[in-house]
């Protein structure tokens, strides 16, 4: 009490401490990007793998030094798109219901409920997919799906996982639509459905798109749940939704424990990581573009 630090110095200390925290985080992110890029590009610049063959090669057989990442790229994109396709109507539908039809129920019952899904760890989804969904698929499709593992079961698991993400963000988006819009529409004699369809969804569109992209980001980067159910076949292109396949994340998880550091295989795995990194940056950019467009549209 006797001696107090001058206020200006105290403020500078506060600024420095908190600034350091931010700088630390930023530094780690920059290091990560740098390291992934450096290791991932070694494949092409030092090990001499042709980048075109890497991106479009249809076989990933490390023992034969064949590094074609297309099977995983196709796998990643298919599970992402399919799972979004499954989850989207359900997510938007429930968001409309709990915001437009039954707001009280939405806040008190539905939201805590759907948030339970967020909490479930991805390995638990993996277990569920591996032992339940794969068996179901096997039972339904019989001969066509000998193990049940494949893009379809991966997409179903992912759809459940991204459902809460898209739903809660869509709910926020719909709630953000000013009530005057709705009242204006009702005053013109429109039904609730007309109001929702023509007025609410239209003005919430940019935020809804952001919700979808964030769901896709999660699906694209989801690792263990997919790896456990998709079958893990990188050697060749998937030929159907029921064949065992692989994704970028699954191939990384499976491969990283076997690869000796410094080998071409090891670097090739980092190149897969680089693709994942670039894709997440692309997703962020899309979200920013949507945000900027939305801001412009709203003046």
């Amino acid at each position, binding site marked *: 009490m*006797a001696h107090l630090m001058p206020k200006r110095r105290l403020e500078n200390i506060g600024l420095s401490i908190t600034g350091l925290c931010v700088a630390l985080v930023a530094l780690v992110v920059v290091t990560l990007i740098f390291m992934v890029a450096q290791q991932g590009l070694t494949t092409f610049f030092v090990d001499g793998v042709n980048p075109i063959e890497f991106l479009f090669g249809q076989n990933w057989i490390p023992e034969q030094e064949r590094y074609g990442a297309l099977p995983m790229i196709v796998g990643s994109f298919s599970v992402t798109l399919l799972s979004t396709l499954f989850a989207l109507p359900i997510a938007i539908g429930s968001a409309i219901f709990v915001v437009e039809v039954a707001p009280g129920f939405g806040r008190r019952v539905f939201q805590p409920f759907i948030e339970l899904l967020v909490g479930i760890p991805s390995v638990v989804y993996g277990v569920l997919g591996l032992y339940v969904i794969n068996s179901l698929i096997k039972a339904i499709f019989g001969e066509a799906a000998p193990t049940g593992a494949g893009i379809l079961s991966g997409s179903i698991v992912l759809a459940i996982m991204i459902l809460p993400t898209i739903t809660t963000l869509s709910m926020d988006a719909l709630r953000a639509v000013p009530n005057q819009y709705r009242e204006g529409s009702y005053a013109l004699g429109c039904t609730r459905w007309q109001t929702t369809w023509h007025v609410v969804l239209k003005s919430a569109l940019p935020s809804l798109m952001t919700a979808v992209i964030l769901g896709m980001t999660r699906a694209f980067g989801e690792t263990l749940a997919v790896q456990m159910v998709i079958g893990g076949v990188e050697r060749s292109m998937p030929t159907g939704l029921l064949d065992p396949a692989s994704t970028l994340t699954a191939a990384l998880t499976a491969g990283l424990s076997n690869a000796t550091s410094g080998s071409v295989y090891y670097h090739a795995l980092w190149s897969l990581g680089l693709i994942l990194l670039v894709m997440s940056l692309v997703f962020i950019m899309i979200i920013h573009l949507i945000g900027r467009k939305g801001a412009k549209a709203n003046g």
Partner: protein
Amino acid sequence: MTDITTSRTTSGRPLLFTRDVTVTYDLAHEALHKTSLSFEAGQVTALIGPSGCGKSTFLRCLNLMNREIPKCSVGGEIHYHGHDINTPKENLFELRKSIGMVFQQPTPFRKSIRENILFAPKKHGRVRTKAEEDELVETSLRQAALWDEVKDKLRQSAHALSGGQQQRLCIARTLAMKPDVVLFDEPCSALDPISTFAIEETIRDIASTGICEIIVTHNMEQATRVSDRTAFFYVGDMVETGPTQQIFSDPHDQRLIDYLTGRFG
């Protein structure tokens, strides 16, 4: 630490005056244009005008609170105790010790009544012993006419008080810093008539101890009740200023006349 006696000896010049103060938000929108006003110790000045006229913006210049708003720049000179405080070098922590501010909404902290009063003096090293603390709490609360109501529940949360009591607590908290200028930003707009009356009385009492007070109000009757001088703002300009009596009985500017007769506002 500056106290009231030194402020009075700043011979000839007012305690606080501004010269050509201009405020722009977002680097383009000018909210206040070249305003020059002066304020004396022991005097209450009311700033009146329709909403959006720049009176609150002007008030927030005087304790440099506009610095807390991003992309807000203040031009011109603000002289306090004989030197210009509108410079980057000015130590705003020191400055705000002697220029207090009371806001539109009562803003008690989530602490006890006692801690609300002592929080800032402690952080500025103004009180050292328990006896000093007790004395400061009592005198400040008495000055704000709140002592009798709360003396038995000083350890209770300030949020349990009524709106008017909360606002008087905020005044007491400001006075505990022993300021020589107190700024009021529409202090009664969230209060009922009885609380408003109590606050107005407090404002007059504080002025009689030699503190310079500046009050922003949208209530013209309030201005006539509490202030010695009045300044009328209109769309970013300080249009007319003078003794309150004269402003209300013998206005010159047509805009002020229109405002007083209720043509707008």
